[in-house]
């Protein structure tokens, strides 16, 4: 007689996303299941390997029987969930959110070093943002070029805090943080001193690679030249997790 089966700690559930029946471990989030099954869900703050932030609100999905929209990055799957990821309403909301981002700071793609390799630009195209209905705020933001290898342009920052999280969680330096509130928020290094004078920065460049826009870039790059590589992140995160 075989020994009795050991009950696993994590159960497997089945759920339905956009009409497709899928299986998932119950400790997975909706966005992980969607990525695994090539169901496109837009997101800016979410990044595989970093902690969940839940701030960009682009990954909101509709759940049957629930009036409120749920963020796919921070919602765990459950048995029998019926999820819609791309309804007309969601498309409208996503488009408006991307427009709000474009109007908030100075995202001028044609002169941006990340032109053509920018996640915000890509999402805008995906969400059908052919023009922005809200007025541009036209506020001047500073550029910090004090670091010998990298540059920070607040004009392009969308405050997704990927840099803050990767620096804290992966590199362990916690050079980055956010100061101010509301639209006065900005990312800072150490105690809001120039990046080049930061005592804690290890110049590892992880923040630059995870930045979705042209806010954090390598020095010396010109228009369209800044291509980012984020492949290191999930590998690093998994290896660390396995230890």
């Amino acid at each position, binding site marked *: 007689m075989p020994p009795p089966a050991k009950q696993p700690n994590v159960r497997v559930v089945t759920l339905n996303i956009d009409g497709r029946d899928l299986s998932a471990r119950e400790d997975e989030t909706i966005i992980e299941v969607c990525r695994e099954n090539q169901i496109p869900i837009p997101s800016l703050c979410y990044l595989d390997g970093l902690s*969940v932030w*839940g*701030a*960009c*609100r682009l990954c*909101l999905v509709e759940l049957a029987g629930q009036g409120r*929209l749920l*963020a796919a*990055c*921070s*919602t*765990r799957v459950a048995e029998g969930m019926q999820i819609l990821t791309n309804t007309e309403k969601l498309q*409208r*909301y996503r488009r*408006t*959110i991307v427009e*709000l*981002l474009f*109007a*908030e700071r100075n995202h001028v793609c044609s002169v941006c070093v990340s032109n053509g390799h920018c996640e915000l630009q890509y999402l805008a195209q995906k969400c059908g943002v052919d023009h922005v*209905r*809200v*007025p541009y*705020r036209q506020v001047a933001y500073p550029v910090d070029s004090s670091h010998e290898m990298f540059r920070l342009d607040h004009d392009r920052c*969308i*405050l997704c805090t990927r840099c803050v999280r990767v620096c804290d969680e992966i590199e362990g330096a916690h050079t980055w*943080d*956010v100061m*101010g*509130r*509301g*639209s*006065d*928020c900005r990312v800072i290094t150490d105690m809001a001193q120039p990046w080049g004078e930061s005592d804690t920065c290890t110049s590892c460049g992880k923040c630059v690679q995870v930045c979705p826009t042209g806010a954090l870039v390598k020095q010396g790059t010109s228009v369209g030249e800044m291509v980012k590589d984020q492949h290191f992140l999930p590998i690093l995160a998994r290896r660390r997790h396995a230890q």
Partner: protein
Amino acid sequence: MNLDDLADLAEQYRAADAGVEREVRVCLAASCQSSGALPVFDALTAELGKERPACKVKGVGCMGLCSAGPLVSIAEKDSTLEDSVLYRDVAPEDAGDIIASLDGPPVERLRCPTDQPFFARQQKIVLENAGIIDPDSFKSYVAVGGYAALVRALSEMTPADVLREVTISGLRGRGGGGYPTGLKWSTVAKMPATQKYVICNADEGDPGAFMDRAILESDPHRVLEGMAIAAYAIGANKAYVYVRAEYPLAVERLQTAIRKAKRSGFLGNKIADTQFSLEVEIRLGAGAFVCGEETALMASIEGLRGQPRPRPPYPAESGLWGHPTLINNVETFANIAPIVREGGDWFAAIGTERSKGTKVFALAGTITNTGLIEVPMGTSLRDIIEVIGGGIPGGKAFKAVQTGGPSGGCIPSQHLDIAVDYDSLKTLGTMMGSGGMIVMDETSSMVDVARYFMEFCMTESCGKCIPCRAGTQQMHSILDRLAKSQATRAELALLEELCEVVQATSLCGLGQTAPNPVLSTMRYFRDEYEAKLGDA
């Protein structure tokens, strides 16, 4: 310690004051202090001198009618506010007349009738001791039966008994959401954890709301007692009171209360000689409205940036430092001692079908009687504003009342007869909120009102999620242009669209409810928006 021991203690405290027959009670809560109650208190104390041992000048908490402050009441010992002689707008020069009148007829020129509806129509549970006891005196609270509910819970009830009474009472969270308190408590109680926390949310930030401040300034021990009972019921041994630093007097009185309760064995280790212990600590908010949101509040207590995180997990499952946490509002905790004392059924008999008990409201704006009232749930808005509040001063006409602060909406005159409870306000597109009521007369422009609240939300947005951070700013700029008669019809349509997006997509309650003042003023006063259009 059992209930008899506590009764003996209370008797002992009362005996120490046995010689005093009449009390001159001076309101020393923040609003009366700001209109000069401290010099009045000193003048009365000096005038009374030492010749009259049967009389005593006593600093007390809020008596409610803040617009008439400084308030002084002359009362027989242990009598309520309604049975006392109340004086309004008292100045230090009046001290002589007031003390002289102790043996004779009252000073008519200062008299404020206590049989007027403002006092007569109230039903006090939360504020039962406010204006009667000295908030800085532990003895004063015990003498009127304080801590009896805690001792009763610890000596005669199991945690399950306490949970049952609170559930039966039908009490719902007084912070705004109206979540059933019994359900919240039993959820935390069921969490298998060795470390749990209790938090009292006293970060009252709505413009025009001052209920929690008045409760903390008038009867701080009642809140501590409620927290201790909650901690016993859910199995917590550590509690925090998160108070905004803008309430220095409330913080001071709370600190005094914690110190005295601890010294007398009603907080700290082995409370009332049982195995139950509770440490209570105060944390001060640094001036961010968003820290009233529970997840932001907990981040702030942990020493992190005060910004919300996605829920679930709810605090009941993963709260402070990841431990199960019970978080309730000041007024919710203030209701607990009476519920344990009188029983859940007693409480459930007050109020409406789905909203039980009483509610404290702060009346502000263009209303005759500005101040604090406590009425049963289900009291009509007309009663609150026209009868208790005394209507609009200066012969102006009533236009609307804003409830729920920047998260709520306005209610116009055609809905004044609605019985106020959590659900009825929701059907009108507003919410109970913490209980602030801002009354507006015919001279108020509703576009200005919407712009004011939007500006509040914009400056108080933490900046974490995009819809709230950038959306409130765009909405504010459209409202600003509207108020200046510069906006176009297309911008008005855009405003409505932004309202929908921000409401549906924001991360926390602040953003989700930020469009409410705009939506509700648009619903009832659309014509004012139309009239303000630049291209009309």
